[in-house]
């Protein structure tokens, strides 16, 4: 027990003194959380969208106001008006090719052209409707790039506003409009409407111990193996289990401190409203810490040196985080990528933590959230044990 305690102290204090450990344990997750929230906290919120839209009114001076009314409505939807969704540039007739070029060069997202006969077409439409005849509506051309997200989103947005234009005109011509009854329902909702901070914090609480497991366990182990420290331990009366538990407990304590620090930061600075001290979340977090420590052991035994660990973690870390749905949700994935998602322990951990912290119900069953990481724990420990016993011989 005394040896275990000594190992625990040695490894714990060596990391407290180590700048690189401090970086990965504290600075990296805090920085990542802050960056993500600062970047994506306004994601999809209407007031935060900012498209560049050009409008060209080719109808000229027709003596009617319909085209001007449409330009005015577009202006009311643009900045600097409250809840504006785009920057509107009004170009004059004849600038069409310049405007199209601006779309193609990515300088603007959408071009709206109000055609020459727009006013007369609407006037004819109103007249024919009044006497009970049908006619074709006035066509507004929009130029966009379907493959560019911002252009396509701007196009979709304007498409949506057209319905409002039609209803606006209908009401102005005295037609009664009966709105359809629309309701909302959210599946898996635990708290009212989670912010991006609430969405991403559980993921960061998963990444943090994973990074610690990978970078505070594996390189240390690889270095000890390379410098034959483990072999030297073997020539002493020391029990292997004392080293294992002393080292592991020191990692676990670091991960617990990491949780406390991150939770405090997310709560006090980032104003998250999730239930950070839910007992189930804390228990699951401890389980995850054990899994990631075991993975760290397996990686430490699998690679030849600390530099190899860094190379491997650079290759593995980022894809695993992306395939865990930590930064943004995963859907429409092909079956072969889905296999990686289903095998990814971070995905299950993120799902479970989101449920336990009160963000949303886990899309994977809770038993799977324990079983699959449990398999990783078992496989990693078995691999490490076999390698360790082989090296002892």
């Amino acid at each position: 027990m005394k040896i275990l305690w000594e190992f625990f102290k040695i490894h714990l204090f060596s990391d407290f003194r180590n700048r690189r450990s401090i970086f990965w344990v504290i600075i990296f997750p805090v920085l990542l959380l802050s960056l993500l929230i600062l970047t994506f906290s306004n994601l999809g919120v209407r007031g935060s969208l900012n498209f560049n839209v050009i409008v060209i009114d080719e109808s000229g001076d027709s003596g009617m106001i319909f085209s001007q009314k449409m330009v005015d409505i577009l202006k009311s939807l643009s900045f600097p008006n409250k809840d504006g969704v785009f920057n509107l540039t009004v170009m004059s007739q004849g600038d069409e090719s310049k405007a199209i070029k601006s779309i193609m060069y990515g300088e603007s997202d959408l071009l709206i052209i109000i055609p020459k006969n727009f006013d007369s077409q609407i006037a004819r439409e109103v007249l024919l409707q009044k006497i009970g005849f049908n006619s074709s509506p006035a066509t507004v051309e929009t130029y966009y790039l379907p493959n560019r997200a911002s252009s396509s989103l701007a196009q979709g947005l304007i498409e949506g506003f057209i319905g409002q234009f039609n209803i606006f005109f209908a009401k102005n011509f005295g037609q009664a409009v009966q709105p359809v009854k629309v309701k909302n329902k959210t599946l898996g909702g635990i708290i009212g409407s989670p912010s991006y901070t609430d969405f991403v914090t559980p993921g960061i609480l998963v990444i943090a111990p994973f990074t610690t497991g990978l970078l505070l366990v594996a390189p240390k182990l690889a270095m000890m193996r390379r410098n034959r420290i483990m072999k030297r331990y073997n020539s002493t009366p020391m029990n292997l289990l004392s080293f294992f538990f002393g080292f592991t407990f020191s990692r676990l304590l670091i991960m617990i401190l990491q949780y406390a620090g991150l939770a405090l930061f997310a709560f006090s600075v980032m104003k998250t409203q999730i239930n950070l001290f839910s007992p189930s979340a804390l228990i699951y977090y401890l389980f995850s810490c054990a899994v990631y420590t075991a993975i760290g052991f397996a990686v430490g035994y699998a690679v030849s040196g600390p530099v190899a660990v860094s190379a491997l973690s650079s290759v593995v870390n980022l894809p695993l985080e992306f395939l865990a749905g930590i930064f943004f949700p995963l859907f429409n994935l092909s079956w072969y990528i889905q296999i990686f998602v289903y095998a990814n322990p971070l995905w299950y951990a993120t799902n479970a933590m989101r449920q336990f912290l009160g963000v949303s119900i886990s899309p994977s069953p809770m038993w799977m959230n324990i079983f699959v990481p449990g398999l990783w724990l078992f496989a990693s420990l078995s691999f490490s044990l076999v390698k360790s016993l082989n090296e002892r011989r």
Partner: protein
Amino acid sequence: MPFELLRKSFYMFIRDRQAIIMFFLLPIIMMIILGFVIAGMSGSTTGVNVKIVTYSDSPEFASLISKEASNIGLNFIFVKTPDDVEELLKAGKAQMGLLINKGVFTFVYDQSYGQYNNYLKDLQDIIANNVNEYLSNVKSFIKIEPIPAKKGNLTVIGFVVPGVIAIAIMIAGIFGMAIVSGNYRQNGVLKRMNVTPVNGGYFFLSLSLIRFFSSLLSAILTVLISEIIFSTGYSINWFYFIIFTSSGILLSLGFGTIFSIFSRDLWTILNLSTIFSIVMMLFSNVFFPYSIMPAYMRIISSMLPISYFAQGLRYVLGIEMMHTENFLIISTIFAFGGITMIILGGHLIFKLEKN
């Protein structure tokens, strides 16, 4: 002397499995994984490709909404019971649900999709407006005729993949160079080289050149593999592609060298590289367009080279237009900046080791 250094660097490189993985395989693996994740989010053919699982007790409504909304990239999957809606939504087979029951439209969201639901709520308004028009017999006074500003194979994945390739090349270059330089510094290799007539600038240039060729080959392979996997249909200007990719690779190798100046500890160098890479990825205009970012973040994005690299790659792959003068300026700045950082950085590192 420079040739000897090159020869030696080549042999050291091909004996280094980690370096080969970093420069050769990392961009390909990253392109495949990130490509699939982004393709899943945004749809492969149109900018807004949302699957809506729908139950309707009225066939009239069912045909109306699928007709009205298909032109804005909405894809309705009709099911037989309301329970099927929840089931498909939970399984991630659709992003949004719609229950039409006795004339009431209930839009169903999955909370685990987080902020993405904000976009879906905008779509809800569009669908509701279309239905309102129909129910109130509102005649269409105006209709939209969307015209693509450019002809050809305009898929979202084709637009996203060059950005992903740019990120992968940059990260591989920065980390690869940072690891080799940091490792040499940490193990005292460079200190020992100071007693030889080897010039620091030449030495780092030789290390970079070998990695440059490997990275260029990997970039070509990554593009070809992306063509096969994602059917991107690029019309590649190979001459421009090689010029531009080369300049981007040189820049990333330059950054890797510069990061090695700050510390003799490999891990500190890797920490710096990690922070820089993450910042670059988040502000790359690849995963999320500038238009959804807060204004101050757009300024930071415009200062980072990655968005220009991604834009240039889209240009050489025939996806996006770019002014020729911009292309030339960016290529020159990247190449010149990269080579300068490698030579000066190498020189400075040797000097620091000497002291």
